[in-house]
């Protein structure tokens, strides 16, 4: 879902950069108030893991492939969408500057879609579903819908940029990422959640499990 350079006019790129800087400010503020020293290794290893797994494109039908974005599960495990934003911002900057994966001018838009939308949708769906269903399906549904909605946002942005017609863009981006969300994001996030919950449930942040966070 990495938008390349040249897809979004520069004046629109600026808007996404501004949104990212504002959310980035709140993410840093979240870290200063909430990021426990003991969570730093988990945060770093999740970042490294997200980078590695994003290189693993899963084949889907129609001669297409896709990879997970990872921000929903990072946010769920660390107990805040801002954790997902911080990790994804690092990953996306390295992918863009070091490997040319995603453009530099559109970096703001890519962080907005995969970092901000992925984190907030995944985290709040998980948190909202948690009182009603078991945590495991809540992780699956949250992560699946997070990548799907990020793709929908991407299609809308590219329609505003005049690159894709809105309706066709929504249909193709939506269908491809719904499949990637089911077989990639949803399944892998659920496996990661179950694995960590089995070996070290104490590391999963309680931030999203009780009502009085912060």
């Amino acid at each position, binding site marked *: 879902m990495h938008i390349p350079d*040249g897809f979004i006019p520069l004046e629109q790129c600026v808007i996404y950069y501004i949104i990212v800087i504002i959310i980035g400010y709140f993410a*840093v503020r979240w870290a200063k108030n909430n990021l426990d020293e003991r969570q730093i290794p988990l945060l770093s290893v999740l970042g490294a*893991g997200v980078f590695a797994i994003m290189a*693993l494109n899963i084949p889907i039908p129609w001669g297409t492939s*896709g990879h997970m974005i990872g921000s929903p599960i990072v946010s769920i495990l660390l107990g805040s969408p801002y954790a997902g934003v911080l990790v994804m911002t*690092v990953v996306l900057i390295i992918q*863009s500057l070091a490997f040319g994966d995603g453009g530099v*001018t559109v970096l703001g838009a890519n962080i907005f879609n995969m970092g901000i939308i992925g984190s907030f949708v995944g985290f709040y769906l998980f948190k909202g579903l948690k009182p009603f269903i078991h945590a495991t399906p809540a992780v699956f549904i949250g992560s699946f819908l997070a990548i799907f909605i990020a793709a929908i946002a991407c299609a809308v942005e590219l329609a505003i940029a005049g690159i*894709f017609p809105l309706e066709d863009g929504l249909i193709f981006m939506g269908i491809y990422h719904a499949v990637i969300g089911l077989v990639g994001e949803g399944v892998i996030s659920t496996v990661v959640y179950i694995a960590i919950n089995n070996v070290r449930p104490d590391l999963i942040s309680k931030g999203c499990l009780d009502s009085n966070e912060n």
Partner: protein
Amino acid sequence: MKTNDKKLLLYSIVIVVIIAILAPFLASTNPDGLESTAKKLNPEALESEHAFQSLIPDYEIPGLSKGNPLSGVIAILIGVIVVFVIAYGIGYIFKKK
């Protein structure tokens, strides 16, 4: 750091390194969802140039032949290490005082 924290960190690093090594062999080379959509709806857009020359374009290490999976392994391992170090640094700088 407690011993069981160290153990978990070590195990997770091993898993991440295994993923990094396997990814170039297992990853599908088909275009991703966005690229596929662009191919159908606006193929000319894909010809746009990079605005910035990245250090290791397309995960191909300079000097290694194109399509050599070793290139991808090295590139992804470099990325994994860089992301780990920067994320650790950011966590350390902005952690709760």
